[in-house]
């Protein structure tokens, strides 16, 4: 019993330690609890009105049962995958750290189930479960059975359902332990979660548009009777049992509750069996699963190099190639690139609001350029611990900056060009693309020049998922973010001459003037970059030690 208590203490200790050491994180947690708590209460309230047939949803009783099926399925899916997705974040999820101690396997499994119920997310489950109990008790008040009995039976089934989803989540976690501990999974999840966020963002918008256009309503979804397909799933068994209890059909209730209990028993048995395999070292050996990614084998000295590239200083080429390789291989950089998807939403919004005009593609292109600011304004942050070695090299610091800027320019110009073309095609204004592109190149040069200054004077440490984020720099993060926002505004002001070059020919109704303003804008952008470069290189040399201190986690003495 002491071991079980100690394991639960461990979970509690590891959970609150993160917040004890960082007031900023604690503030973030309070904010998350407030927002998600309010969302959870709102969803629960909405469901409750649906269960009792009140406004605004006004569902009939069969429709309320359908809603219950969908709701429990949603909870089932969420809790099934949440431990797996959250695995890299918390060391408390990694039971392999407990394997060195003589803890019986079932005790360890039970502790993992109980400790998964101790996290913050369980708080968001409670309002919804409360709404189901209240809703199906009140509904039965219409005339079937005593409502308190229906409520008690619903609570019993929901307790079983919660045990089922927690044990299933932990079983899946144990089953996938080998994969979850692998570097490839950690990489994949780093990209996957922001990707899901972007997809959700865009998907929500598209669904909203579709329902707006097609008149799809929640009543229509419920009319499709999802329970026909869901009844014999675990969530469907729970929903069917609650539904039966609300009608006073105790035989049907007992049948579905017993089936759910059996499924839960099987899951618990499976979890215990897998835990035994973990004990035997059969699951956690990720090397069997891992196929290390290898670069193509070659002998460097024999690889030909294009003649024009021989004119490029070797150090500049080396940094550029390294940056491109990192862009391809580093999940953190790929994850940051997903931020460039935000302007895509603007294309959708612009088309929905019928926004048009000759400058709409240019505006969207500009958005792509400034959406790349997290990359261009923190060019050393993504090197993280590698900065020690980068700054150990005696290379000319201008070459370091240019090497990194080549990547920034490729991304900004490439993405904004694609974005402008897509926006122009969507808005049926393809003719404006050729005249817009030179201005985007010029704006990218200004952005990169400003980004160098921001990267040197106001760097940010890039914290990987699951990494301990505590450092001196993160405590100063708020001020740095404000200052970086100011730098961002200065960069925006510096692009105003380029904007003027784009607007003037249109307002003067002199299209031929573009032949002057376009090259002048590029010269302006290049001049800004060239003027800033030596200053930035000199500042970099002076501030390398501070950059290492801020951007890396090393605290060796």
């Amino acid at each position, binding site marked *: 019993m002491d071991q079980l208590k100690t394991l639960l203490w461990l979970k509690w200790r590891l959970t609150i330690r993160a917040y004890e050491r960082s007031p900023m994180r604690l503030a973030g947690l309070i904010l998350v609890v407030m927002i998600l708590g309010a969302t959870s209460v709102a969803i629960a309230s909405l469901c409750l009105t649906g269960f009792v047939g009140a406004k605004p949803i006004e569902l009939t009783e069969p429709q309320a049962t359908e809603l219950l099926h969908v709701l429990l399925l949603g909870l089932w899916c969420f809790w099934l995958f949440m431990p797996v997705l959250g695995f890299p974040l918390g060391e408390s999820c990694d039971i392999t750290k407990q394997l060195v101690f003589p803890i019986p396997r079932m005790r360890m499994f039970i502790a993992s189930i109980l400790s998964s119920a101790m996290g913050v997310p369980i708080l968001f489950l409670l309002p919804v479960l409360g709404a189901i109990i209240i809703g199906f008790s009140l509904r039965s008040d219409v005339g079937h059975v005593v409502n308190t009995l229906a409520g008690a039976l619903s609570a019993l089934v929901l307790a079983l359902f919660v045990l089922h989803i927690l044990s299933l989540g932990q079983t899946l976690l144990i089953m996938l332990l080998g994969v979850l501990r692998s570097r490839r999974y950690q990489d994949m999840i780093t990209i996957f979660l922001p990707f899901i966020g972007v997809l959700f963002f865009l998907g929500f918008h598209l669904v909203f548009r579709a329902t707006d256009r097609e008149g799809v309503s929640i009543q229509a979804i419920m009319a499709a009777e999802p329970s026909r397909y869901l009844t014999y799933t675990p969530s469907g068994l729970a929903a069917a049992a609650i539904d039966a209890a609300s009608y006073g059909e105790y035989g049907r209730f007992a049948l579905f509750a017993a089936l759910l209990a059996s499924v839960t028993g099987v899951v618990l048995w499976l979890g215990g069996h897998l835990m035994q395999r973990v004990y035997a070292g059969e699951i956690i050996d990720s090397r069997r699963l891992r196929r290390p*990614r*290898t670069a*193509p084998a070659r002998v*460097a000295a024999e690889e030909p190099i294009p003649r024009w590239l021989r004119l490029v200083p070797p150090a500049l080429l080396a940094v550029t*190639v390294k940056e491109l*390789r990192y862009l391809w291989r580093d999940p953190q950089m790929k994850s940051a690139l997903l931020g460039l998807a935000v302007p895509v939403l603007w294309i959708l919004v612009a088309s929905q609001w019928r926004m048009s005009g000759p400058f709409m593609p240019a505006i969207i292109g500009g958005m792509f350029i400034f959406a790349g600011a997290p990359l261009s304004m923190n060019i050393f942050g993504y090197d993280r611990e590698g900065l020690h070695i980068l700054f150990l090299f005696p290379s000319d610091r201008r070459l370091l900056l240019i090497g990194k800027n080549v990547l920034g320019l490729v991304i900004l110009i490439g993405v904004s060009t694609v974005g402008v073309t897509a926006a122009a095609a969507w808005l049926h204004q393809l003719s404006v693309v050729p005249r817009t592109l030179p201005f985007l190149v010029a704006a990218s040069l200004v952005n990169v020049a400003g980004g160098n200054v921001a990267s040197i004077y106001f760097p940010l440490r890039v914290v990987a998922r699951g990494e301990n984020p505590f450092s001196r720099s993160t405590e100063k993060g708020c001020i740095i973010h404000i200052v970086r926002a100011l730098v961002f505004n200065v960069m925006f002001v510096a692009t105003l001459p380029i904007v003027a070059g784009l607007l003037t020919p249109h307002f003067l109704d002199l299209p031929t003037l573009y032949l002057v303003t376009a090259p002048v804008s590029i010269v302006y952008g290049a001049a800004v970059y060239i003027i800033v470069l030596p200053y930035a290189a000199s500042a970099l040399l002076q501030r390398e030690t501070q950059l290492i201190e801020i951007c890396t986690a090393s605290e060796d003495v």
Partner: protein
Amino acid sequence: MAGNWSVILNRLTKDFDSFRAVNDVNLWVAEGEFFGFLGPNGAGKTTTINMSVGLLKPTYGTAIVAGHDVLTDPLAVKASVGLLPETLNLYERLSAREFIEFAGVMYGLSRSESGGRTEELLELMELTDEADKMIVDYSMGMKKKTALAAALIHDPRVLFLDEPFMGIDAISSRAIRQVLLQLKDRGTTIFFSSHVLEVVERLCTRAAIIQKGIIVAQGTLPELAAAAGLPGDSALEDIFLRLVGADMHEESLSWISSRPSSG
């Protein structure tokens, strides 16, 4: 006289907020010398090395390495030194071959020269078979050998090694020792920080011992023994323990000392 010294640390001091990690360190390492730098965990060894190579700004004091002041001429210092850090800060998403070659070019070698030396280093470090695997998938020992290869590729005048043998198997360790001795014979200055006292005893001509950021003694082995008040032929371990004050108290665990012996 200064021309004969590869490393001169003059009143080097580093504060982290209110914590003084390195306190007024004065050290001289002669050209071609194999210099041991010893101290318990947290004594300030890594901080001293990082300040010496320009990766950490001293709060006070100067470091002159290979004739260049690290504060006023950091690039010249960096061109002259190689560093094997204790915490391996590598570009782990590159393969060992890519990384070592990258380091060579960044140290000013031509691409072809860097490529050639990379192959030799991979061979020496027995990394050739795994050379195209990303470093992130390497074992600690393989990472250490990759870092050492990158530190050696430009034939540095001064080599700073921070715990070079930690996490390395006996075969690689022997190969690395031989490389270090070759480098010493060629006149490379080696600043060698390690916990493995027998290696320091065997390889180093002089050593310094740092504790709580302060140099408590430096010199040849007999000089260190004298500073510790021990005979000149004392083992380095005894000298080290005496100088850091660890031999004063006999440590034991109550539940072990109270257990009756099985014999």
